């Protein structure tokens, strides 16, 4: 359960839960990706990725379909392994531990790194049971404690007021945008450090999208957020740093303002000005 039992733990882990509002200069690196290559069988999907992602920041990954952005984000919690025939080289250090190492416990990793998916995917259970699912699988049984976690998580996902009177109704009765916020609450309930979001608003209407974007800005205070998005305006609105990927490679990675106003690479410029993609 606790990564501290892992003998590869570095000293950095000791101040694991400090959510002190450090200034940009002091921000710790959460994910350090070095020379990452990934193949789906013969298909070379990620090529020599080198990225550093920092604590309490929103990092957006943009790029055209098939550029590898979803593959990369799914590598960060090793969900990519659910696809048969995946192989990798290189390393991704999560707070100093290489998560691609065989000794890494994926259940532990995924407890620290939550994920929100493209399509809202609540379980066919009540809203309460959806949010309580994570704590329950990690062994929390006390009703009072679960109640607390559910309320806190739903508040954290800015949906408590809309659902507090219908916690025992099936989550499928909610609108798409509400379902997605329940999914975010479900993710918050396991108290992760990082939240990975794979195009979380692509199936939602503009108003729901706006609500989620506002939520992401709030969540940034306490969580590190990495978001894949199709929508460049969205990346510009919510992220601190932006990665532009193309054909499995990182073309450019810099501060969001910098990347959108003054791209260094010609391909980035072509993409953000809508010449392709």
């Amino acid at each position, binding site marked *: 359960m606790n990564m501290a039992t892992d003998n590869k733990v570095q000293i950095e882990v000791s101040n694991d839960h400090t959510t002190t509002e450090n200034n940009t200069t002091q921000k710790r690196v959460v994910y350090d990706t070095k020379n990452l290559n990934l193949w789906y069988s013969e298909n070379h999907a990620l090529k020599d990725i080198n990225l550093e992602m920092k604590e309490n920041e929103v990092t957006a990954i943009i790029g055209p379909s098939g550029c590898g952005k979803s593959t990369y984000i799914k590598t960060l919690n090793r969900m990519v392994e659910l696809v048969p025939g995946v192989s990798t080289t290189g390393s991704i250090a999560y707070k100093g531990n290489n998560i691609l190492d065989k000794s890494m416990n994926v259940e*532990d990793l995924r*407890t620290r790194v*939550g994920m929100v*998916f493209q399509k809202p*995917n609540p379980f*066919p259970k009540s809203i309460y049971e959806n949010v309580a*699912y*994570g704590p329950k699988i990690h062994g929390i049984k006390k009703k009072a404690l679960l109640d607390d976690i559910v309320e806190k998580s739903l508040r954290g996902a800015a949906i408590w007021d809309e659902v507090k009177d219908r916690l025992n109704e099936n989550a499928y009765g909610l609108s798409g945008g509400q379902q997605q916020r329940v*999914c975010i609450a479900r993710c918050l309930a*396991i108290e992760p450090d990082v939240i990975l979001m794979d195009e979380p608003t692509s199936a939602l209407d503009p108003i729901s999208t706006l609500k989620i974007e506002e939520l992401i800005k709030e969540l940034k205070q306490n969580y590190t957020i990495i978001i894949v998005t199709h929508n460049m305006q969205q990346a510009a609105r919510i992220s601190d740093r932006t990665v532009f990927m193309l054909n499995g490679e990182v073309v450019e990675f810099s501060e969001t303002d910098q990347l959108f106003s003054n791209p260094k690479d010609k391909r980035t410029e072509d993409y953000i000005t809508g010449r392709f993609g």
Partner: protein
Amino acid sequence: MENLEALHENNKMNARVRKNSIWKSIFFLSTLFGLVVLVILIARVLFQGASWIDLDFITGRLSTNADRAGIMGAILGTVWVMLVVIPVTLIIGVGTAIYLELYSKKGTIRSFIETNISNLAGVPSIVYGLLGLTVFVRLMDFGNVVLAGGLTLALLVLPILIVSAQEALRAVPGHLSEASYGMGATKWQTIRRIILPAAIPSILTGSILSLSRAIGETAPLTVLGIPALLIPFPNGLFDTFTALPMQIYYWTIDASLVAEYANLAAATIIVLLLILFILNSVAIIIRNKYQQRY
């Protein structure tokens, strides 16, 4: 417009329309054929047996005297056999389906096993009877008792159940299990809390349908040497027993000796059909109730 009218008057057009209605009639008649046969069958059975069904017939003991004969022994025998079939097929069948669908890696070994399970579903039931006779009755020396009959019928319907349970598991959307894995759930937690609850209605439907298949099977029981004699009501796994289809079988054979036995067979058929009808209705109700929950 003129062209269109010309088209309408065109003989070729009429020929096409006629061809269409001919084919439609052929397909309708094919459907009708099955229905008519079924109606005749049920009508004949009802006509022959309905007047013989009363409480005494249902609750009575077997007798050589047609007027006094009852089928309680056969009903109890069928119930006892099902008490063996249900747990054995559910545990082994669902377990196999879970392993094949969720744990085993896709590959030649898995497809080899799956092909063979599908083939087993097509093996004639009498062959299962021979297997049961060899293994359960003789080798394990159970004799022709409830346990031997139940295990034989369980083997018979196991392939059907495995295939339907696999389909049920496959139908659970992948994004549900992804969400569970994404929160650090283990495979077993995901199976138990997400995949199985979502698949259970379909699994139940499949198991009820395979159960009704087992209830109606006669051939394997005849091979096992299940009697329809004046034996005591079965009271446990190691008691000899008879079952509804066996009772029908023997009364039909012996109708050449005592003509009324044919009516008793018809009456028993009605009871058996009713049981099967109820089971299938339950399966349909479960399926409709839980359809499209995700």
